[in-house]
Structure formats: structure tokens, C-alpha cells
């Protein structure tokens, strides 16, 4: 694998994380428990979709074959997507969505904090821009985890269930493969070990305050970064890609 190939993979991973979790959150539109929170989730979804557009456009420039953000979003099948498995997990209840958001946002925050200093100008620029938005995401989801975890007996139990169910998808975030290693050596990519430590600190602090308990299991699902996904991704794509596949030349 050369640097260009690794860069393309890296940008697809970043873009697909944003695209898929953004799409998931957009499914809440019109279904939020109260109007303010409905709007909040959709605002965050919009940030993710905007960030995905930047990453996928950069992926197209790196690849140099004329593929656009739309080509990447609409004309790839599930095995060609590079998002982390946690981003494609179903919304479940409000607590499931916020717990998923919290675990991912915290990772995303530290990842972008490092990437804003990347040696690759395009990556650094998008990361610096995105980080300002992710700041708000992680604050929002952290506050909700605390409020619900340290809430009523029912909300506490739902948050603990959400954490127990999602925990097995967190290990993948920190698992470096050839792409991560190559780009780390070039000072382009982030050191996942460094992120893991920061992630652990923040997650434990919030989970403690929320009076929840970190699961003891050390067994983790993986494969999203290499295109091996859970069954849920196919359903997301079926909905997201229907229109451009049914009407390939449709424009606004």
C-alpha cells in the first residue's frame, strides 16, 4: 500500500463515519421527544453530513479519478463503506442514541484534535473546521448521559443497558491497521493509542458521574474500517441510495 492509497482509505473512513452517523441521527427528524431535542439532533446530523461532504470531496481529489462526494455516498455498496460499526447501530430509544453519540463523539473529538495538526493540509483544514462543531456534539451527548444515568431508576437502567450493548463496538476505534500505521509514520494520521487514553479518561469521568458502570467485557467487534459491517448498514444504504439509484440523473 502506498501513501496515496492509504490517504484515500483514511478520508473514506472519516467521511463514512460522519455520513452514516449523520444519516442515523437524521432518522430522528420529527420523532424527538420534544421539539428542542428533535432540533438538536438534526443540527448535529447536519454538521456530520457537512463534514462528510468535505471528507468525501477530499477523497475524490486524492483518488484523482473524478469521483465526487455523491459518487462515494450513493454509488458504493456496503462492503465498500469504511465507517466504524458503532456509527451504523440502530437508534433504539433516546438513551441508546445519546449513549452511541457519547462514545463516538468523544473518540471523534480527540481524533480531530490531533488531525488539525496533520502534515496533510487538506486533512488539517477539514479537521480544524469540524472540531469546532464536534466540541458541541460531545458536550451535548456527555450532558445527556449524566442526566439520564443519574436520573430515575428507569432512565438509569436504560442507560446502563445502552452502554452494555454498545460497549463491544468501542474497541474497534483504537485498533490500528496498515493504513493507520503508515499515516502515523508520515505525521498525517493520528496515534490511536494516544486517543484511547484520552477517550478512556473522559468516558470514565462521565460514566462515573452518571452513576453507571463500565462493562467488564474485553471482547470487541471489529471490521467496519475494512468494510465488514453489521447487517444494519445495508438497510441504511437501501434508504439513502434509493433515489439516486432509481433515478441516476436526477438533479435538484
Amino acid at each position, binding site marked *: 500500500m502506498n501513501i496515496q492509497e492509504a490517504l484515500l482509505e483514511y478520508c473514506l473512513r472519516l467521511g463514512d463515519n460522519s455520513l452514516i452517523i449523520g444519516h442515523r441521527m437524521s432518522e430522528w427528524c420529527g420523532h424527538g421527544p420534544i421539539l428542542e431535542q428533535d*432540533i*438538536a439532533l438534526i443540527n448535529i446530523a*447536519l454538521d456530520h453530513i*457537512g*463534514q462528510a461532504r468535505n471528507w468525501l470531496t477530499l477523497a475524490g481529489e486524492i483518488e484523482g479519478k473524478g469521483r465526487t462526494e455523491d459518487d462515494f455516498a450513493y454509488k458504493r455498496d456496503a462492503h465498500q463503506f469504511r465507517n466504524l460499526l458503532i456509527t451504523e447501530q440502530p437508534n433504539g430509544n433516546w438513551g441508546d442514541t445519546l449513549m452511541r453519540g457519547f462514545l463516538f463523539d468523544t473518540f471523534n473529538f480527540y481524533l480531530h484534535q490531533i488531525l488539525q495538526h496533520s502534515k496533510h*493540509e487538506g486533512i488539517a483544514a477539514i479537521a480544524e473546521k469540524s472540531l*469546532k462543531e464536534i466540541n458541541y456534539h*460531545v458536550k451535548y451527548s456527555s450532558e445527556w448521559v449524566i442526566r439520564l444515568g443519574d436520573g430515575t431508576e428507569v432512565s438509569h437502567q436504560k442507560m446502563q443497558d445502552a452502554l452494555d450493548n454498545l460497549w463491544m463496538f468501542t474497541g474497534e476505534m483504537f485498533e490500528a491497521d496498515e493504513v493507520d500505521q503508515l499515516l502515523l509514520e508520515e505525521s498525517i494520521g493520528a496515534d490511536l493509542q494516544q486517543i484511547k487514553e484520552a477517550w478512556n479518561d473522559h468516558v470514565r469521568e462521565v460514566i462515573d458521574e452518571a452513576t453507571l458502570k463500565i462493562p467488564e467485557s474485553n471482547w470487541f467487534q471489529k471490521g467496519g474500517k475494512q468494510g465488514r459491517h453489521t447487517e444494519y448498514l445495508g438497510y441504511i444504504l437501501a434508504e439513502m441510495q434509493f433515489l439516486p439509484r432509481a433515478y441516476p440523473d436526477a438533479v435538484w
Partner: protein
Amino acid sequence: MNHNMVTAEQIREWLAEVTDPEIPVLTLEDLGVLRNIQEVNGTWVITITPTYSGCPAMKTMEEDISVTLKKHGLDNFKIETILKPSWTTDWMSEAGKKKLFEYGIAPPVKPTANKKVLMGISETIICPRCKSSNTRMLSQFGSTACKALYVCDDCKEPFDYFKCL
């Protein structure tokens, strides 16, 4: 029109007509979205920067710039988007902040987003309707990506706050 007569100042003046489609009192310059106007090999390059990555108003702003310049007879231009240095509320002009307040949107109060934002405390925001500081945040995310929703506990009115980025 003789293009040799056109200057960057002239273009800047024309573009003062272009406002944010969501906040019509703010020009692109007030907002800090307009970064640069420069002639490169006979083509005017207008550089803009997005406020938020997913801001749906960006496309409209681009189209409005295009329409405005064409209206003034300029056709040798292109619009480029840059991300770095990234937009923050620091880029908003003081005049812009004043206009926002008068329009009923509380302007951003701090120079940049709180670096300790992970567990930050919310700031005191002045109600743009009755000027009371007895206000509280209802939601960090408001009617658009750039705004939070506040309510005034004196005049009881809800209002938008253009949050720090």
C-alpha cells in the same frame, strides 16, 4: 463594462448587497464569510468560507454573489471556498454584532468557543428584547446550526443566541 475599471474595492461595495439568507441584516462581510477579492490572470477570484460545515445557506450565498456581480456587469469571476483558517465567531464584525442584537438575535459574547467545552458552563446572555441578563439556555441547538435557543425570565420571551464557534 470595461473590466479594467473594476477594482477590488468596487466589488466589495457591490457585495455589500449580499446578505445571509437566514439573517438578512448581516452582509457576508459582517458575517466574516467573505475572505478575499483578488484578480488572478484577468479573473476575479472571490474567496468565501463556510460558517458551519453543513450550513445550507452557503449554496444560496454563492448564488447570490454570482447574481449580484453579473447584475453589475462583471462576468469574469469565480467563487472559491476555503476552510482554513476556519471560520469562528471572531470573524464577525462589531457592526455585525450590533446589527444582530438590534434584529433580535443575541450576538456571540466571547472571543472563541470555550476550550473547556467538554464540561463547560454557559455564559450570561443579554436578552435582545428587554436587555435583561436574567436569561437561561433552553437548548444548545436552535433554529439553525449557528444558534442556540434561550429564554428571558423577565420578559418571558424566547430568543436566538448566535453561539460562539
